[in-house]
C-alpha cells in the first residue's frame, strides 16, 4: 500500500500532535462536567426547572454526538471522510424531507450522487475532482430535471437541489478534504470544537445577557448579547487553541488567528441564521427530531455549513494547511495536481 493510501488508515498517530491531546481531553472533561455543573446551578437556584430540563437533554445528547464525531476524527482520515459523508447525507435527508424535495426522487438521488462523488474525491485526494463536482452537478441537475418534461415547479426543484448540493456536499465536504492533511486531527478538532462552543456561548450569553433581539423575524430567541458574547468568547479561544494547533506554521500569528476566530464565530452564527430563515420560510421549528434537545442533525451542523468552506480556504491561503501530499490515492492520472 502506498504512503498516501496508508494515510487514510493511519491510526497510530492519533495523539501525536499535542493539540489533539489537549482538545480531546477538554472535550471529555466538558462532557463529564456538563450535567453535574448544570445540576449544581439548578440546586443553587441559578437555573429554572424548564432550563434545567432543556440543558439536561441537550447534554445527554451531546454525550452521543461528540463521540460519534470525535472518534472517527481521531481514528483515521478514511473514517473522518466517511463520517463527514454520512453527516452530509443525513443533513440532505432532513433538508429534503422538510422542503418536500424528497418527493422529487431523481433530484434527491442526484444530490446524494454529488455528495458521494465529493467524498470520493476527498478519499482520492483529488482536488481537481473535488472542485469540479459542484459545477458539473449543477449542469447535470437542471438537465435531468428537463427530461421529466414537467415545467411546473422546475425552478423550485433545481434550486432546492442546488442548495442541498452546495451546502451539504460542497460546503461540509471541505471538512473531508482537510483530512488529507498529515496533521489534520488538531485542525478539524479546532474547527468543530470552536464552532460548536460558539453555539453554546451564544446560547449561554443570550440567556444571561440577552435583551435586544437582533433578527426577530428570523430567530426570535437570538439576541445582540448572545451574538456579541459568542464573538467575545470564541475569538480568544480560537487564538489560544490555534497557537497550539498551528505552532511552526505561518498561521501561528495572533492577527491571523483572530481572523480565524471571527470566521468561526460570525460564520457559525450566520449559518445558524441561514437555517433559521429556511425553517421560518417552510414554517417549521426544527429540521427533524433525530437528536433530542437539538432537533435534527442539520440543526446541530448548521453552524458548520458556512464555516467549513470559509475556514478551509482561509487556512489554505495563509498556510495553516500545507496540502503537501499531491498524489492521488485511489486513482492515478498523470498530471494530477494538488491545490
Amino acid at each position: 500500500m502506498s504512503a498516501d493510501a496508508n494515510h487514510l488508515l493511519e491510526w497510530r498517530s492519533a495523539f501525536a500532535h499535542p493539540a489533539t491531546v489537549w482538545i480531546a481531553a477538554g472535550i471529555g472533561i466538558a462532557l463529564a462536567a456538563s450535567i453535574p455543573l448544570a445540576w449544581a446551578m439548578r440546586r443553587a437556584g441559578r437555573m429554572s426547572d424548564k432550563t434545567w430540563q432543556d440543558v439536561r437533554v441537550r447534554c445527554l445528547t451531546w454525550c452521543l454526538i461528540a463521540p460519534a464525531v470525535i472518534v472517527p476524527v481521531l481514528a483515521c482520515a478514511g473514517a473522518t471522510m466517511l463520517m463527514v459523508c454520512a453527516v452530509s447525507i443525513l443533513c440532505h435527508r432532513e433538508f429534503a424531507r422538510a422542503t418536500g424535495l424528497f418527493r422529487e426522487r431523481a433530484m434527491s438521488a442526484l444530490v446524494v450522487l454529488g455528495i458521494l462523488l465529493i467524498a470520493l474525491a476527498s478519499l482520492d485526494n483529488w482536488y481537481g475532482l473535488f472542485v469540479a463536482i459542484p459545477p458539473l452537478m449543477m449542469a447535470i441537475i437542471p438537465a435531468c430535471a428537463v427530461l421529466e418534461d414537467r415545467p411546473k415547479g422546475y425552478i423550485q426543484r433545481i434550486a432546492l437541489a442546488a442548495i442541498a448540493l452546495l451546502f451539504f456536499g460542497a460546503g461540509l465536504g471541505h471538512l473531508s478534504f482537510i483530512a488529507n492533511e498529515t496533521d489534520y486531527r488538531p485542525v478539524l478538532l479546532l474547527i468543530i470544537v470552536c464552532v460548536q462552543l460558539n453555539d453554546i456561548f451564544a446560547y449561554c450569553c443570550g440567556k444571561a445577557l440577552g435583551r435586544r433581539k437582533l433578527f426577530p423575524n428570523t430567530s426570535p430567541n437570538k439576541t445582540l448579547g448572545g451574538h456579541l458574547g459568542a464573538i467575545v468568547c470564541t475569538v480568544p479561544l480560537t487564538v489560544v487553541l490555534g497557537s497550539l494547533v498551528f505552532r511552526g506554521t505561518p498561521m501561528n500569528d495572533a492577527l491571523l488567528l483572530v481572523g480565524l476566530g471571527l470566521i468561526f464565530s460570525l460564520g457559525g452564527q450566520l449559518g445558524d441564521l441561514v437555517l433559521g430563515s429556511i425553517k421560518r420560510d417552510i414554517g417549521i421549528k426544527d429540521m427533524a427530531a433525530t437528536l433530542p434537545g437539538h432537533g435534527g442533525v442539520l440543526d446541530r451542523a448548521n453552524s458548520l455549513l458556512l464555516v467549513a468552506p470559509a475556514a478551509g480556504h482561509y487556512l489554505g491561503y495563509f498556510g495553516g494547511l500545507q496540502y503537501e501530499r499531491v498524489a492521488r490515492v485511489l486513482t492515478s492520472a498523470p498530471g494530477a495536481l494538488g491545490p
Partner: protein
Amino acid sequence: MSNADWQFHPAADHGLGPVERLRSTRREQGLLSWAMHHLALAGLRTTLKVYHRFEVHGRENLPTAPPFVMIANHASHLDALVLAAALPRKVSATTFPVAAGDVFFESAALSAATALFINALPLWRKRATGHALEDLRARLLGGREGAPGSSVLGPEQGSRGHVQDSGLQDSGLQDSGPKGSTRDIAHQPECFSPVGLILFPEGARSRDGAMMPFKPGIGRIVAATSVPVIPCWIDGAHGAFPPGTWLPRPRKLVVRVGAPLKFADQPESRDGYDAVATRLHQAVEALRADTQRVGG
C-alpha cells in the same frame, strides 16, 4: 417578483422521532426506503414465482393508480406479500399493506423491517377506538377530510365531521397506537397524495383456512367514497404458511382478482358499514367458488 408561489410541503411525518415515524400512519417514503422497498419487492416476486409457482388471475381488475383498497381472505402471513407482489410496479410505491401493530411493529427493529421492506402501516388491534380507521381513511383519500385533494369523497361527504363512534367496538379494525403513533392524520392540516391500502377485513388470520365473517371496520374506511375496493381470493397460502409454522412450504399460490366495487351510496352508519362488509364477503366468497370450480 414574488416568491409566494413557492410552496413547501414537508414530509407528513415531519417532527416524529425515528422509531415513532416507522410506527406512524403518516409515514412517507424517502429515497432509501423507496429503494429498499423496491429491492424487497423484486426479491419477493422472484421468490414467489420460483418457490410458490405464483399465479395471478384477473390481472385486468388490478388497480392502475391510487386510491384503492385491496381486500382478501386472510389465513397466512404470506397474504399481504402475495397481494403486494400481484400489484403493478407503478402503484407499488404508493401501496401500503395494513399490518397488525401488536405483531409487526412491537419492537423498533421489527418496525424498521416491516416499514422499510414491506412498506406496511400499523393497525393496533388491542386498544380499540375508531380514530385509527379515520386515519387510514384520511391517508387513503389523500388528506384530511374536506381538504384539497380529497376529490374521491362521495356525494354525502361534503360537510362530514367526525364519525360518531357508532357500534364499531367490535369491528376488529379499531385501534389507537400504544406509543402515540397513530390518531395523527385526521387531525393534521397536511395534504397527502392518495394511496392504496391492502386490508384483511376478517381482522385476524383464520386458523383453519376457512374464511371468517368480515368486520364492519372496512366499511368505515370506504363507505360514502368512490374509492374502488378490489376483492381478491388467495388460494394456497394457508397450506403454504399456516399460523403456527415458521417456514413457508413450497406450495402453489394463486390470487384471483375480482372486479372493483364502489360504496359511494353506502351511508356512514353502522348499517352502511355492515352492508359494505357483507357485500365484500360475498364478492370474495364468489371468487373462492370460481377458483375451486376452475381448479376442478
